[in-house]
C-alpha cells in the first residue's frame, strides 16, 4: 500500500512537471527577463516510464493491478 502511494506521488509529480515546464502559455520577447524552457514532451515520458519500471525493479514487486489514481 505504501509503495503504491509513493508510486502515485512520483507519477503525479512527473505529470505536474510535464505540464508546468512544457505546456501552457509560453511568453517570450523583449519584455520577458527569463523563461525556463525545459523540453520534456518526449524526455518526460521516458523518465515517467523508467521511473515506474525502475521502482518496480528496486522494490521487487511488480505492479499487478492498474495504477492508483493520483491524489
Amino acid at each position, binding site marked *: 500500500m505504501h509503495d503504491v502511494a509513493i508510486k502515485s506521488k*512520483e*507519477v*503525479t*509529480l*512527473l*505529470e*505536474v*512537471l510535464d*505540464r*508546468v*515546464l*512544457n*505546456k*501552457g*502559455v*509560453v*511568453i*517570450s*520577447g523583449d*519584455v*520577458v*527577463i*527569463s*523563461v*525556463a*524552457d*525545459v*523540453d*520534456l514532451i*518526449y*524526455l*518526460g*515520458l*521516458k*523518465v*515517467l*516510464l*523508467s*521511473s*515506474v519500471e*525502475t*521502482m518496480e525493479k*528496486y522494490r521487487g514487486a511488480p*505492479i499487478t*493491478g*492498474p*495504477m492508483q*489514481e*493520483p491524489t
Partner: protein
Amino acid sequence: MKLYLYGIIDSSDQINEPIYGLEGACVCNIPYCDIGAVVSEFTEPVQNNTKGNVLAHEEIAERLMEHFTVLPVRFHTVFDGRDNLLSMMQSCYKDFKDNLARLHNKLEFGIKVIWPADKIKEHIINTCKKSSQKMSISDDSSNKRFMRDKFEKYKLDEEFQAKADKFINIMDIFFSKFAAEKKLKKLKTEDLLLDAVYLVEKDKQDDFREAFEHIKGPHTSFKFLFSGPWPAYNFVILPKNSDLLKDSRQEDLFDKVVQYQELAGAEKI
C-alpha cells in the same frame, strides 16, 4: 520589481482570499480590461528552479481554477515591472480572450495507458508462425529466408500498430462522448500505448471518470494512469507567429535534461 506570472484569468477583480505562491510571496491579480494577470512581486529575480517552486506554481494555477477560467503560464515566466506586463497583456488580449472563452467551464484530464508490448508482440509472432508453418516453403535458401524474415518483421510491425489502433479506438469512443476536445498520442514508446489529454466540461467530469473506470475494468494486463482535473495546459492555443508568443527553445539540450531530472528527482531512482 519583478513580476512572476502564474496565469491569465477571466476576471479583473482582486483575489478575495489570501494566496501565497513561490517562496511564500503574496499572489495578486493585475487587471487589464476585463481580464487579469495573476502574479507575485519579487525584488530579486526568482532563480530557484526547485521542485517546491514548480509545485507552488501548479498549486496556484489549481487554486485559480476553482474560481476562474485560467490560462496557465509556463513555469518561470518573469516580467520586469508592471509596464512590461501590461504591454504584453495589451498585445495578447484578443488571443487570451478567445482562449478564455473556449476553455470556460472546462477542465483537462490526462490518461496514459501502458500495455504489455512484449506480450503483444509475442502473441503476434506466435500467430504468424502458425500461419507460416501451414504455408512452409520447401526451398529454404538464404535468400528466401532473408525475405521471409523481412516480411515477418514488417508483418509484426503492421499487426502491432493495428492492435494499438484498435485498442485506442475502443477507449477513445468512450472518452470522447464526454470531451469537448482531445489530443491523442499513440505509442510514444512501445509500452506507452496511449498518452491522451481530454478537455471536459465541468458538469461532465463524473461521467468522464466513470467512462475511465469502465474501460479500466476488463483490461487487467494494462496499466492505466488517470490524472486531473488540471488547468487546461494542453489546450491553450496561441498564434505561433506572434512577436510576443513563441516557443523559446534556446537552451542546450543537456542542460534541459539535467534540469528536468533534478526537478523530477530522477537521480534517486
